[in-house]
């Protein structure tokens, strides 16, 4: 195996792959990416933008792709070298449920385990089974499960083998919100506890914000944006069409717990925020998403409202978006950027200008863990 130091912490994917469809259309995936080999890289893009194709190339399922793939310095593909899929130590959760119909859930999961070179940790096993709510379903066959149940089993199957790289193709798309909320924390803890990098395809910016460290945006087979999550999200000139989901992600540290009201106080570079207590211990780092729609601006500080978070910020840039009625304002809070969305009328009314100091009011309840 070729391990060279400068790429040992990277996943580099430089791939050119043509799909020629009947009817004359061709689709060409052409990407050249250096992704961090830890954390979660979200791949975001419209339907048909080539997200699935990209994952398939990385997994080695598209055998006719050209280019070079290195995962932590190990060459998976290069010129004539082509490590086949089953030797790539990759986990793959497919877009559609892909359980083996002839095996029950337990055996579906065991399929991966028995072929994994690493030893199975029984605790890890039970943890995942529990988390995916599969304990009572282990004996069922796939055709006895609902769509969501099937996908949960498929996620467990891919997670349990602790691969070198985990590829997930919209793994939560077929789950209801409650299950999503249950699974997301586990994906987060995979992120923290296991050293496995994840490439995560999704349509949901919510999942992106929650999970991703790094973001790749695809359009028609090309990368149109690519970088750390925070930078990509806080760039208000960016062509991402996130609509209501526009917002930034900040990392903060838990400083104080107010047990009476079940709140915690967290500080980030731009100040401090009171957040619903999610049980995080003091000293821990947490991720906070601040949606532009949840940020309002005021010229003076108001203490008689239910909005508990107020930050003194400086207007950095004003950008028009969505129709003509709204605009985005990026605000400097210390070294962090947050975005507010307001109506043009409000901006005019308050006479907002670049460089001006204002109060950003953030509804505490609007902060995502």
């Amino acid at each position, binding site marked *: 195996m070729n391990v060279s130091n400068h790429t040992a912490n990277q996943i580099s994917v430089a791939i050119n792959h043509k799909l020629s469809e009947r009817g004359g259309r061709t689709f060409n995936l052409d990407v050249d990416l250096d992704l961090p080999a830890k954390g979660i890289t979200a791949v975001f893009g419209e339907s048909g933008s080539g997200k699935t194709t990209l994952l398939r190339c990385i997994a080695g*399922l598209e055998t006719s792709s050209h280019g070079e793939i290195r995962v932590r310095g190990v060459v998976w593909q290069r010129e004539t070298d082509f490590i086949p899929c*089953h030797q790539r130590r990759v986990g793959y959760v497919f877009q559609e449920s892909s359980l083996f*119909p*002839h095996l029950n859930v337990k055996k579906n999961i065991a399929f991966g385990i028995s072929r994994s070179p690493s030893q199975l940790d029984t605790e890890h096993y039970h943890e995942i089974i529990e988390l995916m709510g599969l304990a009572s379903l282990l004996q069922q066959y796939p055709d006895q499960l609902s769509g969501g149940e099937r996908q949960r089993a498929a996620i467990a199957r891919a997670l349990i083998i602790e691969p070198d790289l985990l590829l997930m193709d919209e793994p939560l798309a077929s789950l209801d919100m409650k299950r999503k909320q249950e699974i997301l924390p586990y994906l987060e803890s995979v992120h923290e506890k296991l050293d496995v990098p994840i490439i995560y395809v999704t349509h949901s910016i919510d999942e992106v914000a929650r999970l991703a460290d790094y973001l790749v945006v695809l359009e028609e087979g090309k990368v149109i944006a690519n970088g750390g999550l925070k930078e990509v999200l806080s760039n208000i000139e960016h062509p991402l069409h996130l609509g209501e989901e526009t917002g930034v992600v900040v990392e903060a540290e838990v400083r104080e717990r107010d047990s009476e009201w079940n709140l915690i106080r967290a500080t980030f570079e731009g100040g401090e925020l009171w957040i619903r207590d999610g049980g995080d211990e003091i000293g821990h780092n947490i991720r906070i998403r601040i949606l532009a729609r949840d940020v309002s601006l005021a010229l003076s500080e108001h203490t008689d409202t239910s909005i508990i978070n107020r930050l003194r910020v400086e207007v950095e840039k004003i950008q028009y978006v969505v129709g003509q009625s709204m605009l985005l304002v990026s605000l400097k809070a210390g070294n962090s950027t947050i975005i507010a969305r307001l109506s043009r009328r409000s901006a005019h009314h308050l006479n907002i200008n670049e460089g001006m100091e204002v109060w950003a009011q953030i509804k505490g309840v609007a902060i995502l863990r």
Partner: protein
Amino acid sequence: MGFSEADIGAILLTLRLATTVTILLLLFGAPLAWWLARTSSRFKGPIGALIALPLVLPPTVLGFYLLLALGPNGPIGQFTQSLGLGTFAFSYSGLVIGSIFYSLPFVVQPLQNAFDAVGERPLEVAATLGAGPVDRFFSIALPLAKPGFFTAAVLGFAHTVGEFGVVLMIGGNIPGETRVVSVQIYDHVEALAYDQANQLALLMVVFSFLILLSVYGMQKKSHRQVLRFSQ
């Protein structure tokens, strides 16, 4: 019904032959069918056609040419002789070889269809779970193609039992070694011993019907509405 000793010998021999041939056919046929189902080699067509060839040749004619091939001057005969095995005509082994050759398409066709129907996705999934090509074949393709195996086994077994022309030609009608039921019935018919022929034929019909029935029954039970992968 009174079966003569010769009849009983023929029955046992037939069962033994059909079982042996079916097992061997499934063993050889499965990899072949797998290859045919998945290759995009340009030999796929010719080899598929070659395997199907015994279908279209009249068995007696096929038997005649097999007899030539197995004989001391034929290519197979030369080969077996050079191995010190003598020639295979008029022996149980010869019968097995002939039957395998003759029944091969009946096994390969349904297997190939079954493998085709498995589709790409389950194999891709298995690959991502660390299963290599051989592993995928055994752990995914084989079990998913199970209904095809039933069909293949029934067709293979049945066709070997019912086979006649080839056996007649290369078997030499040796009691206990190559005189199978179909030949025995033929003998009875030729000797105008219609009663005996009827008896044996009836037995064959009933027996065959029963195994077919049991296999069809099993197939139905084991046949869970097979979940298919969307592509």
